[in-house]
């Protein structure tokens, strides 16, 4: 039974020569092949029709019937009148590469498997052609490319196929790593991802009966480029392109958070709020997650917190001398005060006033996207903000997870979260978490049915390093247990080698962009969720916007070309006007 047409695979390129289930050698026609191209090998063995996927890692010219190419070249050189009769036929390309796996049609659908078999002897090799092979490749690789969050298109060498590569939102709580050196296209990728989150949420809101889960994202924007874009367009253009109803459904009344509202461009200001976190919303753990304290300082802070609860920061900063009865060494109090003093200077961490945390919480529990301009924050402020938000959201969900009904939940909430904050949001929380009502006896929802919350951790090595992760870091828990609460981290880093192993081992999706040096390439390969050993050369020739997507739930490492945000926005902008979503087949767009 043929379920695909070989003509649609692309052009016949060559035949399989020698190899094993990992590495193959192909004899092919003398074409302009580049490292990184993907070939398909059709094979029929014992009645099993399979299509193997093969990635080019090395090339060599080969002249058939010539054992000693140098001798022939020498003769051509020395005997000026020599020719090579009919040589075009004999000019072949010896292509070495990695077998990526194979697609097989069983039980009425295509499945993809790791390379644990060999294609048949002298099997035919096809080279995919954009415009011809797209549909078949899409079909065969469906299990490897499908999902809700669009990342880019399948890259074959220097071109791409119309095969969108997506990440399933159910795997987002198992954390995503985005690794790439400066100039590798991280910012554009983040904007593409934010756009696909918005698209997913539009699809979810226009198909309320569908099984699409909304995704929330707390996107740190360290250079303030997401809203207005790097080049022509930014997230703000999507916001503007939407009709008011859709906008309010998908984005609420704001999407932009900034430190200084007055410094925000007027058009963005309409959808902007100022970041203000109250001291009483900060817990000692938040600080332990972003900076190192001595054991004495920890002990001091813990004992102050035990007594003063959420007022601990104000109380510590008020102290003139070490409180009586504390057995901390002299100087500890002053040291802690010095450490906390930045909160006094910070415009965003305030002792009194209105906190933004409630709004953030609401946005995150209703499946919304927040772009957080941290360009005017210090690193410490940015990290503390990320940590407070992460911890607050995870503690809320933890409270849900450990409760049977809303009555339990409230008790748990007061236990885990700062009282003033919880007091303010508990009513809203009940409406989010209650199943059929908001009474104490109403059952709580499974957190996994709540929106997926994505929190970006920018400059991740500063807080996800082994030293901080050794202690009581908030991120240690999230990295291990995020999936229980449907909260995932998007770890953005220029380096992989310096990240803590706990977070690396819990990460199930990696978007590997161009890396700066051999050590980081090595680290990327070692850390990848599928075996990509042998891809060193690939990393070396990667250009801006090219990525290798690896995921533990997929067998195939996917080369992806990330489109320019401007291009996909221009392509899709018209679609944001219409209230209803487009066809299902285009769900990656809208």
């Amino acid at each position, binding site marked *: 039974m043929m379920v695909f047409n070989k003509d649609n695979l692309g052009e016949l390129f060559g035949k399989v020569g020698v190899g094993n289930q990992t590495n193959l050698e192909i004899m092919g026609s003398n074409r302009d092949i580049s490292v990184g191209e993907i070939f398909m090998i059709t094979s029929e063995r014992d009645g099993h029709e399979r299509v193997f996927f093969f990635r080019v890692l090395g090339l060599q010219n080969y002249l058939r*019937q*010539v054992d000693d190419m140098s001798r*022939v*070249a020498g*003769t*051509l050189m020395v*005997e*000026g*009148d*020599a*020719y*090579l*009769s*009919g040589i075009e*036929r004999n000019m072949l390309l010896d292509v070495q590469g990695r077998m990526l796996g194979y697609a097989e049609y069983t039980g009425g659908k295509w499945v993809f498997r790791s390379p644990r078999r060999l294609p048949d002897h002298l099997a035919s090799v096809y080279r995919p052609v954009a415009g011809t092979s797209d549909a078949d490749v899409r079909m065969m690789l469906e299990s490897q490319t499908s999902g809700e969050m669009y990342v880019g298109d399948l890259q074959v060498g220097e071109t791409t196929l119309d095969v969108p590569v997506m990440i399933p939102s159910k795997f987002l709580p198992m954390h995503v790593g985005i690794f790439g050196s400066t100039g590798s296209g991280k910012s554009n990728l983040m904007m593409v991802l934010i756009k696909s989150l918005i698209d997913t949420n539009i699809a979810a809101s226009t198909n309320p009966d569908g099984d699409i889960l909304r995704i929330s994202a707390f996107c740190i924007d360290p250079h303030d480029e997401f809203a207005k874009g790097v080049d022509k367009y930014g997230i703000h253009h999507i916001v503007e392109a939407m009709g008011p109803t859709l906008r309010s459904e998908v984005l609420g009344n704001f999407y932009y958070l900034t430190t200084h509202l007055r410094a925000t461009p007027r058009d963005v200001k309409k959808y902007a709020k100022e970041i203000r976190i109250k001291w009483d919303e900060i817990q000692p753990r938040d600080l332990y997650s972003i900076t190192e304290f001595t054991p004495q300082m920890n002990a001091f802070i813990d004992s102050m917190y035990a007594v003063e609860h959420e007022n601990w920061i104000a109380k510590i900063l008020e102290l003139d001398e070490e409180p009586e009865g504390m057995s901390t060494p002299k100087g500890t109090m002053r040291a802690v005060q010095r450490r906390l003093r930045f909160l006094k200077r910070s415009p965003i961490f305030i002792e009194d006033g209105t906190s933004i945390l409630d709004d953030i919480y609401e946005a995150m529990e209703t499946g919304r996207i927040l772009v957080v301009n941290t360009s005017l924050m210090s690193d410490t402020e940015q990290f503390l903000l990320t940590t407070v938000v992460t911890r607050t959201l995870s503690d809320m969900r933890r409270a849900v997870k450990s409760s049977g009904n809303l009555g339990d939940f409230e008790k748990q909430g007061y236990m885990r979260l700062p009282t003033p904050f919880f007091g303010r949001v508990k009513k809203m929380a009940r409406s989010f978490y209650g199943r059929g009502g908001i009474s104490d006896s109403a059952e709580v929802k499974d957190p996994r049915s709540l929106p997926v919350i994505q929190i970006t951790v920018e400059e991740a090595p500063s807080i996800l390093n082994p030293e901080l992760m050794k202690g009581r870091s908030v991120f240690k828990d999230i990295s291990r247990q995020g999936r229980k609460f449907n909260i995932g981290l998007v770890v953005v880093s220029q380096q992989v080698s310096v990240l803590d192993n706990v977070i690396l081992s819990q990460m199930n999706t990696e978007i590997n962009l161009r890396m700066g040096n051999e050590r980081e390439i090595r680290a990327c390969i070692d850390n990848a969720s599928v075996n990509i050993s042998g891809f060193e050369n690939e990393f070396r020739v990667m250009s801006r916007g090219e990525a290798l997507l690896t995921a533990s739930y997929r067998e195939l490492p996917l080369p992806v070309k990330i489109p320019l945000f401007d291009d996909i926005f221009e392509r899709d902008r018209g679609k944001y006007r219409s209230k209803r979503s487009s066809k299902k087949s285009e769900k990656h767009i809208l």
Partner: protein
Amino acid sequence: MLEKILTDKFRKLLKTVLLDIKNQQDLRDEEEFAKDEARIKEKLLDTVESYSANIVLDEDFLIAAVDGSGTENFGMLDDIRIHLLSTATVILDTNTQKGPPFSIMSGAALGAELGEQPSLDMHWHSGVRHDAKNKMADSLTYIYPIKDPTEYVTQFFRDDLGPQIKSFSDLDSTDFARHKSKLEHMNSLISRAGYLTNPVVHDELRTVSEYAAIRNVLTSKFKPKFILIDGAMSVFVHHVLKYPSMPSGFMLREICALAREKEVILCAVSKNHTIPFAHRIAKMAEEIFGAEAKWFCLLPSKNHPNGGLHIYSDRTYLPPKLAVPYLFSFSRDNRPSRIDFDRIWWLKNIFVRGDPAATRANEKKLFRDLEFMSRDARWYGYPVALALAHVACKLSYEDLGLAREVYRDVLRATNHDPRRAAPLREDYNL
């Protein structure tokens, strides 16, 4: 064995043999060569005036080449032996006008006219008395397109005795009249039956297969200027009967005549030959024309106006009956090769009686073409068509290994015991 070979004693033995050869052979030959030296230098040896690399010929032409390969030892079935034969024909176009030069005719075009290329065939015979001969006669009849020997045996006598032999019945007026009945049947044309060893049987089958392939080219729609074949144009003549001892000898004359009729130049090229003093002739050419010169040298027969050469006067098959051999070298890197032409054709097209200069001019024209077709960088100095035919028909060790595996598979599939195919001594790992 190795410990015997790697001894000084073995080396000494070799030295003795070489000395022996020198004493018995070289000394006498050296004297003979001295007698020929001046004639070779002045009359027989000449340079090839080659075409420039980017020549555009007024008329491009086709070159065909045929080569065969095979093994007499492909497979066994008890005492029955199976021969495997492969034959390949390639046709090239000089293609200087359209370029690139020497394009290869596609397999489809070739196959449509000449059948699949290369072609594989098999032959078998047992150890039963006369079986080898009878089977061989059957196979030869099957392989060669002309089934009635009387249609082709006459040509040998016509070429040998003269144009008065027009038909088979004209033999009545000759000494061969008494052998006529033997000449009518393939079986009795095999007159060397006593020596029908497996290699002899195999060689004859292969030669006839190649001749059949040449004949196919000659009768095809292709009109090549040259047809090249690997080997020499030797005909082994029975010393009593005075005619070819094997059917292939007659067939060769028949295809030569056909080639003449179709105005095709038929020639046989051999890399390995036994022309004495070839190295001395080469050295002489180098001295006269320089190390990089491309040259040829006629090896005249005793019928030549100036007679044959002393160096091969004792060598029975030099020059071969009804053939004209030359020695040539188109590449300084290789030893000189030999090329044979049909003598009847040569007399008509190359040789000009009483005019050595005109003869030489004809020869130079002929070798200019031959040299032009021998410049492929893979086999520089050797005709590329022949090299390609050789590559096409070659049965490598691996090919044969696989073919034998397939044979064992087929045996199993047809309920034969595969052990019947194994050489008996394999049981004892010998």
